[in-house]
């Protein structure tokens, strides 16, 4: 019994310590989170290939990202492009972010939220 209490106390202490805490309160959904993921070089790294508002790069491997809501009124289409564009266009150089586990579903949804502000 004593051991169990000690263990529970230790666990509680560890859970409360910064090392075990959840990542800080940065939002994981919505346009702001999406922008952070899109611009992060080890996550979306979208600026490597695309020019877009706020990106300040001349990249042109992929098309410019603007008027996204007008061009992709169906969110599912945009999701599919981010998830696995190779399916639609086997010749593409767009990485299959979802299929190849570069980003998860929620991160892709956040990027789409951001893209819809462009």
């Amino acid at each position, binding site marked *: 019994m004593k051991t169990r209490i000690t263990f529970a106390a230790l666990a509680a202490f560890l859970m409360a310590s910064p090392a075990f805490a959840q990542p800080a309160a940065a939002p994981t959904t919505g346009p702001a989170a999406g922008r952070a993921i899109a611009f992060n070089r080890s996550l979306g790294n979208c600026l*490597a290939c695309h020019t877009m508002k706020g990106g300040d790069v*001349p990249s042109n*491997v992929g098309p410019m990202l603007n008027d996204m809501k007008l061009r992709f009124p169906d969110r599912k289409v945009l999701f599919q492009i981010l998830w696995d564009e*190779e399916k639609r266009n086997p010749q593409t150089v767009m*990485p299959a972010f979802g299929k*190849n586990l*570069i980003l998860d579903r929620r991160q892709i949804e956040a990027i789409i939220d951001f893209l819809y502000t462009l």
Partner: protein
Amino acid sequence: MHLLIPSARLRQVALLAGALGAMALARMPARAATTPNPEADRLAFRAYFKQRFPAVKNGDWGNGPYAVNAGMRQQWEAIMQFPPYDFALGDGEKEFHRRFADGKTYADCFPDKGIGIRQNYPYFDTKTGKVITLGIAINRCRVANGEKPLNYQKGLMASIEAYMAHTSRGKPFDIKIPNDPRALAAYEDGRKFFYSRRGQLNFSCASCHVQAAGQRLRGDILAPALGILAAFPIYRSDWGSMGTIQRRFTSCNVQVRSVPFKPQDKTYRDLEYFLSYMSNGVPITGPGARP
């Protein structure tokens, strides 16, 4: 766990794939698979880049991004007032003429005393059945004369190659594929690697250097594959030092998030063989400087 496919389903998939494969084979015309034709490949490769970049002159393919982008060229010409590879070039020249303990020098290991021969590498060695790159030849020379082999990616190896390239500037790539099925197999191996996708980003060499050649990746311009090896070794600002072709292959593979091969692995030697052959006729420009 949802990724696990039940074994019954797996068998079903395997059966279906097998059936489809058999159907595909049955539909194929009754002749042997197409024999590789390196020279036809080379002409098609060249024609593709000529069409993409009609203004680039033959002597300029070895200048990579600067051949296809005027803005980048201006910056480069300013940088070349004091080329960042100059120190390595000096080190390489000194090392090249240094006497080994047995009194010999590198010149004794190479045709034409090693001067003006970079354009002939890599070559296919019919004795060993392997592709011999300049790096391999340099280390063979060292070992034969009682010296330790050098790191294939940077340092003194890159310096020696810089000197050897410098004495070969303007000489067109002249890679030969001898009449030996193993040479053709090495060429094919390199060609397949060049066009095969790999890594988490799933890029092939061709994704960037054929398909997206000349396009902008942030501030950089993707170099066209034609003549891309003519400038090596290069001083790359991103590295802050000199690097060989083998270093670039390794770093490219890491960038697409794949597991790189070891420098001078058979795959990389075959890749260098294929890619150099594609550039036959393009003059050597190395050593080079790149962002």
